[in-house]
């Protein structure tokens, strides 16, 4: 594997290898709690905290953890941080904690976190794992914000509970309901696919003009 620079460690997760939009990991919270910006942001920050904490701890103790039980060890580390996050959210923002429901404890089985431990923190130094976790966590927060903003703006006509459109706006209720989650992410992925296709087209070599003879003979 090629050595990466610290900048790459940090920036990779934000866009180029965005955990949700590119790697399609951690879809459950992305779809489930993005009905409002408030919930999405809280969820993003909680996941960010758990990812950062687990990455630091796992990379610190990577040489002590036996290879055979590493996954269980990671899960235990993650579960500990999730319990902390759960208790803190319950104490600080009880309303949001209630509306997030089972999805705060479910951060444990978020594939993004376990994936980063297995793929990165278990093999790299503490500093690099921290950078990686910061980047990936921030990428996740950004995705949550995009999803949350689109769904709350269209489905409720508000942003962070402040009305944005005038009183004539008829909310698209479907966007804050479950199908809206699928549709929003679906259209975002379609847009990314469209952008990638455009990029691929511009990179393609241009065709030879008619009548040019190639070395092997015959016209192209």
């Amino acid at each position, binding site marked *: 594997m090629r050595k990466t620079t610290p900048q790459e460690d940090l920036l990779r997760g934000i866009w180029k290898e965005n955990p949700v939009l590119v790697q399609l990991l951690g879809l459950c919270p992305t779809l*489930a709690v993005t009905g409002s910006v408030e919930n999405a942001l809280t969820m993003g920050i909680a996941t960010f905290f758990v990812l950062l904490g687990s990455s630091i701890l796992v990379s610190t103790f990577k040489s002590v953890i036996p290879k055979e039980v590493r996954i269980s060890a990671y899960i235990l580390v993650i579960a500990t941080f999730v319990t902390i996050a759960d*208790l803190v959210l319950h104490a600080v923002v009880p309303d949001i904690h209630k509306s997030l429901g089972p999805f705060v404890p479910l951060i444990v089985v978020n*594939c993004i976190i376990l994936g980063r431990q297995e793929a990165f923190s278990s093999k790299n130094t503490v500093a690099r794992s921290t950078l990686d976790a910061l980047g990936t966590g921030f990428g996740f927060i950004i995705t949550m914000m995009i999803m949350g903003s689109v769904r709350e703006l269209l489905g409720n006509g508000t942003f962070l509970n402040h009305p944005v459109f005038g009183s004539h706006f008829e909310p698209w209720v*479907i966007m804050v309901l479950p199908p809206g989650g699928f549709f929003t992410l679906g259209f975002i992925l379609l847009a990314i696919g469209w952008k990638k296709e455009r990029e691929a087209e511009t990179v393609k070599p241009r065709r030879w003009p008619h009548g040019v003879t190639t070395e092997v003979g015959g016209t192209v």
Partner: protein
Amino acid sequence: MRDLFWIFISAMLVNNFTLVLFLGLCPFLGVSGKVSTAVRMGAANIFVLVITSLTVSLLNKWVLPYAPYLQLISFIVVIASLVQIVEMVIKKVSPGLFRELGIFLPLITTNCAILGLAILQTNRGYGFVEGLSFAVGAGLGLTLALVLMASIRETLELADVPGIAKGMGLVLIVAGSLSLAFMGFAGLFSS
């Protein structure tokens, strides 16, 4: 008895785990390419869900009243080791079934539907029998969603779609339409 029936119907259709509660999306999007695989995955899920539900009932009754802060950690440890044990038992008792389920059994450990069921069951205060009905309903609901999705995707394979839609984008929009259809079941409860 009527309660049990409604818990079952609610878990299966009205609050379908995959399409309405967004639990267990990874297998839903990952292994819904073929109907036969989807059926097997669904079966494996039902199996693990039921066992988890039984164990969680026991944990809730005997262990957690004394150490509530251990809830999450004990659930995940129990689920992970349970799946491991089940895998070993099936491998020993019925190698045929083991081959059928294959990679799906270990994958189920990290399926949020399982932990989700454990947490929802605890939050709603379901007992032993109610939990069982909840688990079977949820499992059947997951299987239904998986099989529906797989059959649609098998047909989509042959469809002529634009290049940008080849991949997850289209699958998610199909899932959204399915989810829309399942919202119709919300009318089952009049109260």
